[in-house]
């Protein structure tokens, strides 16, 4: 195992690996059929939403039940801008900044409260959001919603709509993932982690828990806005039902199932959000929610840290027999690879029973 780890951390190999990922991402839209592309695009949309939730909940430990409100706000801003013929760049900026400002305003008040009180405040967001979207019908189209096909492929590209939309999601979503990864792995990430584990310790080290909570919440709402923009680009329709409270809970479940405080976990969470309703529909359309509930429980029992921890769990199971599989199985998260002697740390669950990447790196 040490050799495998050593091999993989060499810079050129990592570059090749990155290059392969980038090329695969660029080629994927051209290869698959329309339905697969649309599904991948949808997964991207919700992976970004889950990523935002992960920043505030997974990394900073503040319970937020309002993420879908920011997604909905982003989608509405996009829908409004696109139907009124704004420049598309302006639409994008507005769809990120407006939810971000809303998030900042809410966070300034909510972050003063501790623990579950924040959860209570954030519950209010989708609950207020739905009637608000119905009431402001001049901007939101009321309960009939807005549809906008602004994201159809321009003629010069020669692409199908689904391919163009998937490229949009890959480029914008990929950028958000990269930026977020850098954020949570740098000094802000360390500050978030300390605020998550103990606010008093954070304060004693000169890190203001209030400020970092506000920051995390604002970043989460900015990312939610991006997700809303992509939502409109892919689904091309939004209505008050987009931001019902139930979807916020599903986003939360997706985050936990994918893996809290994990970048890959956010992607898996997006996949869960989109694919599981489809699978359960195939099994029995009359029992979708029951099956989803059963799957949620099963995942939490088998993989309490989320699906992102699966390679680690498998590696642990296989270790006595075959020592080298551990490194290979972890190719997708090279920076989160377990180092020898760290296993003891990993196996100790952190707050809430969710082991985090951060712990490994601490």
């Amino acid at each position, binding site marked *: 195992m040490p050799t495998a780890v050593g091999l993989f951390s060499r810079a*050129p190999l990592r*570059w*090749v690996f990155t*290059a*392969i990922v980038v*090329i*695969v991402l*660029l*080629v994927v839209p*051209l*290869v*698959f*059929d*329309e*339905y697969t592309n*649309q*599904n991948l695009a*949808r997964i991207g949309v919700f992976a970004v939403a889950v990523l935002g939730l992960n920043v505030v909940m997974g990394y900073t430990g503040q319970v937020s039940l309002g993420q879908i409100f920011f997604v909905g706000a982003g989608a509405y801003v996009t829908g409004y801008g696109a139907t009124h013929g704004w420049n598309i760049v302006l639409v994008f900026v507005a769809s990120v900044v407006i939810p971000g400002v809303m998030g900042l305003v809410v966070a300034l008040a909510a972050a003063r409260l501790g623990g579950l009180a924040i959860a209570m405040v954030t519950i209010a967001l989708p609950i207020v959001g739905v*009637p608000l979207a*119905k*009431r402001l*019908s001049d901007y939101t189209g*009321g*309960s*009939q*919603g807005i*549809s906008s*096909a602004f994201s159809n492929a321009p003629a010069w590209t020669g692409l*199908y709509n*689904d391919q163009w939309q998937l490229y949009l999601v890959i480029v914008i979503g990929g950028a958000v993932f990269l930026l977020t990864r850098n954020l949570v792995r740098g000094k802000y990430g360390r500050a978030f982690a300390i605020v998550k584990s103990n606010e008093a310790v954070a304060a004693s080290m000169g890190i203001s828990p209030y400020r970092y909570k506000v920051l995390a919440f604002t970043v989460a709402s900015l990312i939610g806005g991006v997700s809303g923009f992509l*939502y409109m680009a892919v*689904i*091309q*329709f*939004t*209505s*008050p*039902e*987009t931001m*019902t409270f*139930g*979807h916020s809970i599903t986003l939360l479940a997706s985050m936990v199932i994918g893996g809290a405080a994990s970048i890959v976990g956010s992607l898996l969470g997006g996949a869960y959000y*989109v694919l599981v*309703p*489809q699978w*359960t*529909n195939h099994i029995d*359309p*009359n029992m*979708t*929610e029951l099956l989803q509930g059963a799957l949620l429980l099963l995942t939490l029992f088998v993989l309490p840290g989320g699906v992102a921890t699966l390679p680690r769990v498998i590696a642990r199971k296989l270790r006595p027999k075959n020592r080298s599989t551990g490194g290979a199985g972890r190719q997708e998260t090279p920076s989160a690879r377990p180092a020898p002697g760290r296993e003891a740390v990993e196996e100790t669950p952190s707050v809430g029973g969710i082991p985090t990447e951060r712990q490994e790196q601490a």
Partner: protein
Amino acid sequence: MNRKKNLRLTGAIALISAVAVTLAGCGRGGDGSSGGAGGESTGITDSTVTLGITTPLSGATAGPGTCTVAGIKAYFGAVNAAGGVKFGDGKTRKVEIKALDDAYDPQKAKSNYDQLKGSVFAMTSGLGTPTNRAYREAAIADKVPQVLVQTGDPIFDDAKQSPYQLGFVPSYANEGEAFGKLLASSGKDLTVAILSQNDDYGEGYVEGFKKGIEGASNVKVVKELTYEATDTSVDAQITQLASTHADVMFNAMSITPLAIAALQKAQQLNWKPSWFLPSNTSSPEAILKPGKASAYPGVYSVSFAKAPQSPAFAKDADVTKFLSDLHKYAKYKGTPAFPHCMWSYMVGATLEQAFQKMTDPTRDSFMKALRSISDFKAPLMLEGTSVNTTMDGQPAVSSVVVQKYNGTGYSTVDSLG
């Protein structure tokens, strides 16, 4: 050394890209013409035709949603058991139904549509305005019929804006207009108070009602108030309206507890007008009994389907066949609690009419056949209503009859009083 490495790296990337682009070139070539949504004859063979439904089968609207599938399954279950539908092109086909759950989420509805569009001939019967709107534009672009869907949104009935769409159930305006006409033709001098929900639902009813009383000098609207769908009480509005002592109360309300509270409050204030309620908040058991509606000179609503619960139809041939089909082919237990079961059954009957008329097994021919049905009396339809798809701007069923509460159920009336 370093440069060599970089060169090798560049080479590797170039190779991979070349392979990838070649692969991509082969990938999409095959289905270029159909674009994935399928062609004119997707979902139809010489022996079967497949219909797709996306509707809420879980969540808060699961009850009516389940009905939107059960009714059509019951209808075509019986038709298939008798051999199938004889199409206009001479072939006999069985009808298959693929239903998916969207939980009243527009995003899931679109996803279900994307999943179904490559294998179904048409989308039908699904419940919900936002969920149907979510894939309306995609269905137009793909030329997939989205017909006889269960929403009162008039955009689906506009053949210019929505060439591949057609709604099934009467719009809110149709319902309001029917009651307005009844008042206009009563010949009595009437004053009307209006309380409506402040959204497209309430506006639709009021707009239709005003159209119904247009030009009638005997009907006068004396006061018009609104409430929000999120309000928990309408006592203030009822008190204001009671002070007008209007003869008729037009209450366009979709919230069950508020509808009950409004009926009770007006009685407390000793204001007892003739009272109108929309079809979805007119249930005798759930609303009128707790609201003590028998205190009023008359509580009116509109309908176009025979209610299986009503004693008047207990022995009706349509109703007994409908119930047995529903139990046998749709595995639906008990008497349907929602009218959507009956509506979906009628959707099945209307589709069968279109199938019998279509001369080619194409979506185009189907749309033409579907838009040429007039005065078709589907099973379970009340006397005085019919399916008529030839009028642009109107859903397949735009005729409703006004009914009056008789203490146990509703019976059709043609005048006020």
